[in-house]
């Protein structure tokens, strides 16, 4: 039974606080899979978390480039987007294990396409859209 916690984000103004809470709960593990529909705010949440890890540079979506890499004095972060990957083989060919085994933070969007690749322990961060502003964020640890 995975360890699960539920957070409610009522508006964008609360996002920074939510990001801090998530880091507090999850930062023991470095691999986090983000699930949520198009427009749920996966990239927005990952940006907020990364800002709290000291990233100051402009952050953009990695859908086209597959992996964006950010560094701060506190952490190296790989922001990975599996949206364009069709199968496990393609994930292996882009070198996904090099990132997963690096010991650095890996924030991964659309991981459900290749979920069999991820060995526990990792955190699953599910974002559910309640209305235009409100999101329910479910954190579950897979061990």
């Amino acid at each position: 039974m995975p360890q699960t916690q539920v957070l409610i984000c009522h508006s964008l103004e609360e996002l920074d606080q939510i990001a801090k809470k998530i880091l507090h709960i999850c930062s023991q593990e470095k691999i986090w899979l983000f699930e949520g529909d198009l427009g749920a705010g996966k990239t927005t949440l990952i940006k907020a978390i990364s800002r709290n890890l000291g990233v100051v540079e402009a952050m953009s979506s990695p859908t086209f480039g597959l992996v964006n890499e950010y560094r701060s004095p506190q952490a190296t972060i790989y922001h990975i987007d599996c949206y364009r990957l069709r199968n496990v083989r393609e994930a292996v060919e882009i070198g996904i294990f090099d990132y997963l085994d690096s010991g650095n933070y890996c924030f991964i969007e659309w991981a459900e396409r290749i979920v069999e690749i991820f060995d526990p322990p990792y955190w699953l961060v599910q974002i559910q859209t309640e209305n235009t502003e409100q999101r329910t964020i479910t954190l579950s640890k897979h061990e």
Partner: protein
Amino acid sequence: MITILAIESSCDETSAAVLRDGKVLNNLIATQSVHERYGGVVPELASRAHQQHIVPVVNQAIQEANISKNEISAVAFTQGPGLLGSLLVGTAFAKAFALGLNVPLIGVNHMKAHILAHFIADTKPNFPFLCLTVSGGHTQIVLVRDYLDMEVIGQTQDDAVGEAFDKTAKMLGLPYPGGQYIDRYAKEGNPLAFGFPDVNTPDLNFSFSGIKTAVLYFLQKNTKENPNFIQENISDICASVQQTLVRILLKKVRKAAERYKIKEIAIAGGVSANSGLRKTLQDMALEKKWNVYVPDFQYCTDNAGMIAITAYYQYLANDFVGQDANPDPRLRIA
């Protein structure tokens, strides 16, 4: 005589080009036809498949340019930004090739190369000029003072504009990448049929993730009332979204042009193929008395021709790297 072999492998495409004295002789991208000669298959997306493409593509570029390997004065490669695994293949190949020929190496910045692609054609922009670089992964306004003197004066804070096109297409049920389908449908549609709000971003920066969400909610609301809403209105939806994205891009270009008092305006990157962007830019240029530069389509998307022309100017400036050069996925325009 300066002869440069250039290799691009930053993302999906493996490409090779040969340049002689500032003129790009050819620009080959690994395609099925290149591969059929060698009995191989080209996977659509597999960065490590660059390994399979690189030898045939380089071979063909050298053959078609009708040069001998011994005439090559330098080997150029994309050093970044891009996907590490992909960049590594081009870097390792270029290093080995240069070492074998005992010629210098030139590490090229992919984003600068998109801009310098304008110097492949006969009509070249005059310095200083502004370049709007728009693609699936990037959205930037760059102030170009000289070949190798550039400054990013505005960029996206979240999604690239190409991603906004592609994800809108996805929501409309069009295949990925769907930017080109949006463009096609938009030609038949009314750009003022539906309104999407501009996102106010500071200064010369952009934001496109809000538009994506606005389109999503708009489609959800309307398909709830009419399940056939998308099918019945696809041209108008595409035209309206495209008009919104183009308007946001050009608003900042106009602002940059006024601020820097520059009338030489260029566009680069894959999205510069978008006909709505081209047309609106041309209209604005007439009104503002700008000179507008749009590269040939083959030099808009990722290609080695643009790496070759950039390497040529680096060669003239004595800007080489050693055998210890590494790819840098995070490379920025300084």
